[in-house]
């Protein structure tokens, strides 16, 4: 008899102590007895459908065949996995599965990594006795814009259905018909449009589901796999990047139980096509009248160095730096503060929240804390649209029993599973917060839920129109809830890493405050004197450019005209700037105004580390060479610094990584070697034990005014927006929905407009969609859409009909 934490099972005559609660198929695999499987998947509930995992289990009434994927291990269980009866049953199932299979392995993408191939070889009989006509279907059949289905190859294992239904909550694919005509299909006129559809392709144990971008591109044995981290959003899903002949061909989710648990959003999975776009800037560009001309790096660097060198430090600012690695962000932070002597750095573009709240809030939640939460509070952007993998984790926690309170001015993807949804009119968030804080009778049930700890509060800015101070006030409220931990929500790529590297006017590397003398002097010991002035944030920099207080600006992978709340201000600011250096991979509305564009390497082309929204640092691995003559941001900055006569020490990412671990307090010990050799599987949360975080930020309640104008504006984020990567991804850009103004039917009636009528918002005409989910006297527009990009993100808004104003 094994001890309490194990049970004893006998497999093929050998006794093993195994963990109770697990299924036999898993327990057997862990002790080296592999049992074939198709429907079994570690992350999915067992269905016992394919029957290939049959084994013999001894029982009181003799030995019986049982599916090992459905059978929990129990003490004293005696199992035979290789008896003649088992071998015959398994071979029989494999023969059944292959009867109608087209055996088109030579042209099948799965060939070479196919469990059907592998297991037919290992457990099958080797020849077919089937001489009847095979079942045929029209193929491939698109089930969505991204996924194709070959029903002839399908073994009907139910994995894709379970992934779509149980994991993603998008029950859009199902079995239809019955008997030997059973097939996977979508519902009539309802494609499998799920943000998580690519997971079905990865989970498919045969070549039945293929993605449009990978189909017929490579053979598995030609692929090289490199572990890395997705930088599509701030969740940083762990991935395997598959390349062939120097090109990324496929991105698969890697099994990191602390983050994405193997799953990816389709944006994580398919966005890499944007990096292969022929629109990439691949050589340095120097302004030549209305146009740019290509230039050599040396010419461009000389020009940049001489122009930047002509300004006094605080005449230059840098906006951006959130798209790359921590090392690149650190290099930018150091370049500005040490080489330029400027305090004006900001990785946010007026679209974020207080950097102290984002980087230093205490106590901070991890993603895994969701699983133990009594109640989860989400008051911020729609997670499904902005941080889809975090949405999956919240969804899973809720399905496992956590209560969920969603507070939002508009419908979010989590509403349907929320315990309570508090809907408020955009601009009246502070009023709702006051009522919740005062336990207003109208919110008794919500208050009750929030008193059930541990509470994990996910707090951010629901819309770019929302006052960023509201997030601080909400965080202060949430922090007082029982056993509360906070997860600040910002969505952009490596924004948390960038803030941690000091890319904020109020922060120094390692979560130190510019106002903290000890931190400043410690950093000055390493870097030399830091700028005396207080820095400007991005909006202040743009205003200063207009006022000529700031004369030059560096745009680092950012497009303020598109991203900041006031596109018109950004445009004027960039027009007014004397010198603009863009470090970017694309020509954008903003970088097209630059004097010099230096082509920087993008995700997949650089090594380094990145920090996600829980403070988890993971290792990014380069999988391909930078496109054209692109160069890592840090290397470009290092060259500029050298030409300006300074040594930035950023020629190599490992040098920077070492310097971060030595000079950024919260990152002490967080070296690339540590990540690689100690905890590489899941990354690690900073600060590590023993390291310090000088600034432990505790949010305080702030007075935030309620906006009472006739109409208020909510910019609803969408995963498929007109962002720079989406726009350059041939795979994804077709998925952007058309834009309309969402109005409550009552307001539409008052304005005498109906579905499809056009109204004008800020001078931009858009069709109206009536939507009862929009609070009265509120207007919802898609954020970052071609049709809305020029509309200022102000809370109060005017809605004009053709007949006049309203």
């Amino acid at each position, binding site marked *: 008899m094994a001890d309490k934490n194990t049970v004893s099972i006998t497999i093929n005559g050998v006794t093993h102590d195994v963990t109770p609660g697990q299924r036999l198929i898993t327990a057997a695999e862990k002790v080296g007895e592999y049992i074939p499987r198709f429907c079994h998947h570690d992350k999915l509930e067992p269905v016992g459908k394919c029957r290939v995992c049959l084994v013999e289990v001894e029982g009181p009434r003799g030995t019986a065949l049982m599916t090992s994927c459905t059978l929990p291990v129990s003490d004293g269980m005696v199992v035979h996995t290789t008896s003649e009866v088992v071998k015959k049953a398994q071979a029989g199932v494999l023969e*059944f599965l292959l009867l109608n299979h087209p055996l088109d392995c030579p042209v099948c993408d799965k060939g070479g990594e196919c469990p059907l191939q592998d297991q037919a070889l290992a457990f099958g009989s080797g020849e077919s006795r089937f001489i009847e006509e095979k079942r045929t279907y029209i193929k491939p059949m698109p089930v969505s814009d991204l996924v194709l289905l070959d029903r002839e190859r399908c073994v009907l294992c139910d994995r894709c259905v379970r992934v779509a239904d149980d994991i993603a909550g998008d029950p859009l694919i199902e079995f239809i018909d019955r008997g030997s005509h059973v097939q996977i299909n979508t519902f009539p006129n309802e494609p499998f449009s799920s943000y998580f559809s690519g997971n079905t392709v990865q989970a498919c144990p045969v070549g039945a589901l293929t993605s449009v971008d990978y189909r017929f591109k490579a053979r598995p044995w030609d692929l090289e796999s490199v572990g890395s981290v997705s930088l599509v959003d701030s969740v940083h899903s762990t991935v395997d990047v598959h390349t062939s002949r120097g090109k990324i061909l496929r991105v698969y989710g890697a099994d990191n139980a602390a983050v994405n648990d193997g799953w990816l959003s389709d944006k994580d999975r398919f966005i890499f096509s944007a990096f292969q776009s022929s629109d990439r800037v691949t050589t340095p560009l120097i302004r030549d009248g209305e146009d740019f001309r290509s230039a050599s790096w040396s010419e461009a660097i000389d020009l940049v160095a001489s122009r930047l060198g002509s300004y006094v430090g605080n005449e230059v600012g840098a906006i951006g730096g959130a798209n790359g690695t921590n090392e690149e962000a650190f290099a930018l932070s150091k370049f500005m503060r040490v080489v330029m002597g400027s305090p004006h750095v900001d990785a946010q573009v007026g679209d974020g929240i207080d950097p102290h709240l984002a980087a230093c809030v205490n106590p901070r939640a991890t993603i895994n804390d969701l699983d133990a939460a009594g109640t989860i509070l989400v008051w911020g952007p729609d997670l499904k649209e902005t941080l889809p993998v975090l949405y999956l984790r919240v969804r899973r926690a809720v399905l496992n029993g956590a209560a969920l309170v969603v507070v939002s001015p508009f419908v979010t993807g989590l509403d349907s599973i929320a315990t309570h949804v508090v809907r408020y009119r955009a601009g009246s968030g502070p009023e709702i917060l006051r009522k919740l804080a005062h336990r207003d009778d109208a919110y008794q049930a919500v208050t009750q839920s929030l008193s059930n700890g541990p509470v994990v509060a996910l707090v951010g800015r629901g819309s770019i129109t929302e006052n960023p101070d509201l997030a601080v006030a909400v965080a202060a409220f949430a922090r007082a809830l029982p056993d509360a931990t906070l997860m600040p929500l910002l969505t952009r790529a490596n924004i948390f890493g960038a803030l941690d590297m000091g890319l904020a006017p109020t922060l120094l590397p390692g979560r130190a405050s510019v106002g903290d003398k000890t931190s400043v002097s410690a950093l000055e010991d390493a870097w030399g004197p830091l700028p005396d002035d207080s820095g400007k944030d991005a909006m202040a920099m743009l205003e200063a450019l207009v006022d000529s207080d700031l004369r030059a600006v560096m745009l680092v992978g950012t497009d303020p005209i598109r991203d900041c709340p006031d596109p018109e201000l950004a445009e004027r600011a960039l027009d007014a700037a004397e010198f603009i250096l863009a470090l970017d991979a694309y020509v954008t509305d903003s970088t097209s105004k630059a004097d010099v564009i230096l082509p920087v390497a993008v995700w997949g082309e650089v090594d380094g580390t990145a920090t996600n929204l829980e403070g988890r640092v993971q290792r990014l691995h380069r999988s391909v060479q930078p496109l054209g003559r692109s160069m890592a941001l840090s290397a470009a900055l290092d060259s500029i610094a050298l030409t300006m006569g300074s040594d930035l020490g950023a020629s190599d990412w490992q040098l920077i990584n070492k310097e971060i671990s030595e000079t950024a307090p919260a990152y002490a010990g967080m070296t690339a070697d540590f990540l690689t050799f100690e905890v590489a599987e899941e990354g690690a949360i900073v600060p590590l034990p023993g390291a310090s975080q000088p600034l432990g930020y505790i949010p305080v309640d702030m007075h935030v005014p309620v906006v009472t104008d006739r109409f208020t504006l909510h910019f609803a984020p969408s995963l498929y927006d007109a962002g720079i990567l989406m726009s350059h991804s041939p795979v994804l850009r077709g998925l952007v929905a058309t834009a309309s103004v969402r109005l409550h039917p009552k307001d539409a009636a008052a304005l005498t407009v109906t579905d499809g009528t056009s109204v004008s918002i800020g001078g931009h005409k858009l069709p109206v969609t009536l939507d009862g989910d929009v609070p009265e006297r509120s207007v919802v527009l898609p954020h970052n859409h071609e049709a809305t990009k020029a509309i200022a993100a102000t809370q109060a808004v005017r809605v004009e009909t053709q007949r006049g104003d309203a």
Partner: protein
Amino acid sequence: MTEMILTQRMTAHPSDSHTLSRYLDTGGYTALTKALDNMSEEEIVEEVKASNMRGRGGAGFPTGVKWGFLAPAQPRYLVVNCDESEPGTFNDRQLTERDPHQLLEGIIISSYALGVSHAFVYIRGEYPKAARRLQRAVDEAYEAGYLGEHIRGSEFSLDVTLHLGGGAYICGEETALLNSLEGKRGEPRLKPPFPAVEGLYAKPTIVNNVESISNIPWITANGGAAYASIGPERSAGTKMLSMSGHIRKPGNYEIVMGMTWRELIYEIGGGITDGKALKAWIPGGASSPWFVPDEHLDTLLTIDDVASNGSMVGAGAVIVMDETTNVVAAAHRLVRFFAHESCGQCTPCREGTSWMEAVLKRILDGNGRPEDIDLLLDISDNISPGLKWPPAMTTICPLGPSAVSPITSITRWFMPELEAIIAGSEVAVG
């Protein structure tokens, strides 16, 4: 027929046995009154246990024992299986069409005994008349206070909901039925958990057949011991049999088990049509292995005797085949049925049944090969390892092994005929 429990009323009053007024003036709902007024829930369960009635849906599991497995959680449900789809069975149909109040009274008493406040009847979609009559009976019962709140002034309340199936044989399997009732695909569930622990809407559920439940009023009124005293000890009570095929007097019969098959076929059924010879019969519905005259005419018709001879009484469908029957064609027809009705969720049934169907079809089309016999048996073995009875299975539910029964029946009893068809020679049938 010495004893009639279920068919007494419909025999005596064929024109209006289904109405409430006739039901009441032939003693209807007195058992319910007795139960509510004089019996505790446990006492009724004890009477059902004492009756030794074995479930009439096919598996023959004692109804009282099954009731004892019901988990304590509330709510809990009673689901009556009227998805009578086994080829050759039509007795639930008659019980429902002709005596719906008897079924309903059984439902009410059973629900009272089981602590159920919502019962469901799943009726196959091809039984519109049965559904209409049962719905009318339900409406009448609500009207008369036999259903609804505080039945007959007691503390007991019950709602009954009828649900029409969509025409799938598999929905007669109790867990597929529950899935279908929940609005899901009609696919059998993995067991455990069994419905008594986790059934409809994941709550404790008893699923009983129409005939079983229709016996409950009689057992309540007359006591379990009286029921147990009818017929052989382990096949107590009466059994409805549906006789069809080449038999002179096809139809439903309520019989007391214990007679020989010879008596059933030649006395009750009146013998074979046109005086022809008996070639084989299916004793318990399409999924049961066949019996043949040389071996089984003097076998006793009891649940255990039939089982020990390698078949089952099942739901009571007796299909008789005379000497002119092409048994290979008959087997093909049965296998085709199962292939068509396979839900398709598990591999051996989905692929195996249609493969066997295709092979049999090819043989009948004159393209058989000698090795097809071994092939058919090996496919069968991969669905039902060892070809034992009761069958082992590689499948989730017994539908796959059901399709094996016709194959093993013809290879066991009619091998020369099968070989002759494959060889292409004239087959001596008839």
